[in-house]
């Protein structure tokens, strides 16, 4: 980005100050997970994590990491710079946006955060994992039959390897990605799994997909889904967006 943070600044008594040369990248990432009215902002020494949840079944997280100091990026002519400040509990989140000498100050009232759901998705429990170039999935996602209530994901060490399926009014559709395809960067499937996820929950992930260059798709033994998107912005900085989703129903494993 680069995003720089300080845990405390002198006179202002802020507990968080974050600065960005160009707010556009942050804005794009946040738009990618804005499918609900509320988000949880979590600031750590490593960076910002923004969480949005839907009906206790879906969770989206955007990670904006801190960059090492000393890296200077030339601001574009029409770039908007951002300074985000927070005084602590009870204070609003204050954004200072500057563009062409004009400063806009936004104070956003904060609320009691709810504890984000812990999906207990850990890498040791991962059954199947693929990493794809986003290009290949973008096409499929843009064509997804929205009359289908679910998106079915099949992952298997054997045919069809990686398959997306929909069951809509016009019929069933399958998108197959063979394990030796150019688009497939990593293929680690240990057992055949078929899981269904509510289309309405996954559809918002299309925005994150659009920004990304790579996607990792993982399922664990419970059928929980983890989608991780690698977003590289114009400055070459890297951010992550991830989605966790509960399976819609049990499907007999073939």
């Amino acid at each position: 980005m680069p995003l720089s943070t300080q845990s405390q600044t002198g006179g202002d008594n802020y507990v968080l100050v974050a600065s960005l040369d160009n707010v556009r990248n942050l804005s794009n990432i946040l738009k990618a997970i804005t499918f609900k009215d509320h988000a949880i902002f979590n600031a750590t020494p490593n960076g910002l994590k923004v969480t949005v949840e839907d009906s206790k079944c879906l969770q989206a997280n955007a990670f904006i990491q801190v960059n090492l100091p000393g890296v200077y990026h030339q601001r574009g002519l029409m770039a908007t710079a951002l300074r985000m400040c927070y005084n602590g509990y009870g204070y609003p989140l204050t954004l200072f946006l500057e563009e062409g000498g004009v400063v806009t100050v936004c104070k956003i009232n904060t609320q009691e955060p709810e504890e984000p759901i812990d999906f207990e998705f850990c890498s040791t429990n991962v059954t199947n994992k693929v990493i794809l170039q986003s290009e290949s999935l973008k096409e499929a996602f843009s064509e997804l039959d929205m009359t289908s209530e679910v998106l079915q994901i099949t992952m298997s060490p054997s045919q069809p390897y990686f398959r997306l399926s929909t069951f809509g009014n016009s019929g069933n559709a399958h998108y197959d990605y063979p394990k030796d395809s150019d688009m497939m960067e990593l293929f680690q499937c240990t057992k055949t799994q078929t899981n269904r996820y509510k289309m309405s929950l996954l559809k918002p992930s299309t925005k994150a997909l659009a920004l990304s260059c790579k996607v990792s798709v993982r399922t664990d033994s419970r059928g929980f889904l983890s989608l991780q998107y690698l977003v590289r912005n114009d400055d070459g900085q890297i951010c992550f967006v991830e989605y966790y989703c509960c399976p819609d129903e049990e499907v007999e494993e073939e």
Partner: protein
Amino acid sequence: RPLRGQERHACQEKCSIIIRRRILGLRRRNGGKKRGRGGLRERGRKRANFFDEYQLEGVAPDANEICLEVTPENLSRALRTSQNAKCVKIKLTKKHCPCLTLVAELPTLSSVSRVVTHDIPVDVIPRRLWHDFKEPSMPDFDVSIYLPPLKTMKNVVDRMKNLSNFLVMEANLNGEMNLKIETDLVSVTTHFKDLGNPPWGDDGSPGRSQSRDPEVMAHTRVDIRKLQQFLMGQQVNPSKAMCNIVHKRIIHLILLHEDVSLQYFIPAVA
């Protein structure tokens, strides 16, 4: 030179045209008849420079004016077709009803011009109602300030409109202006600096501006949509744009472009 369609943004509501000896005024009142309601005002000054020919025979020798009401859309449509005209004549005529007849001579490939005539129906406003159409006088303002680039202002106001229906405009004699909105969830303030304040002198500036503390802001809360409407006029490309604020009462916006001034009064809301 053909009259340009500045009245275009007066939309569907009726627009009144007041033709006087020196001034051609187009005016739209926003709804009610009372003075002081928000409205779009346009005025042509120094008509000698604007028009090649100007003949007027008013209602009476002591009231050398004509007051007409017209649907702006009709007028702007006619003007649009005359944009490339060599010459345009506007006459008040009587066809099946009183009309503004617009005769445009359009260029063709041959030596013979093509003439297009538009008859725009108008209502003649009788003299007894003229007080309703009286031009509001320049208010006794607290602060006068040049506006920031209208395009920038429009961007800011358009985005603020997403968050709130009401906006506070405040400015001081130090060339500073703030646009503010506030809701339960968020407050947003955009700060403009170094805008400059118009040097009102003997023109009739209120005496109080001389002794006013330059840091103190005069502010007025208005319906954001009315401000948005005014900002659509930025396409006129004014040479000067300024704003007079009467604290908690009214915002008076003025665009100047050559011979034409566009004035907009936005009253305060509670």
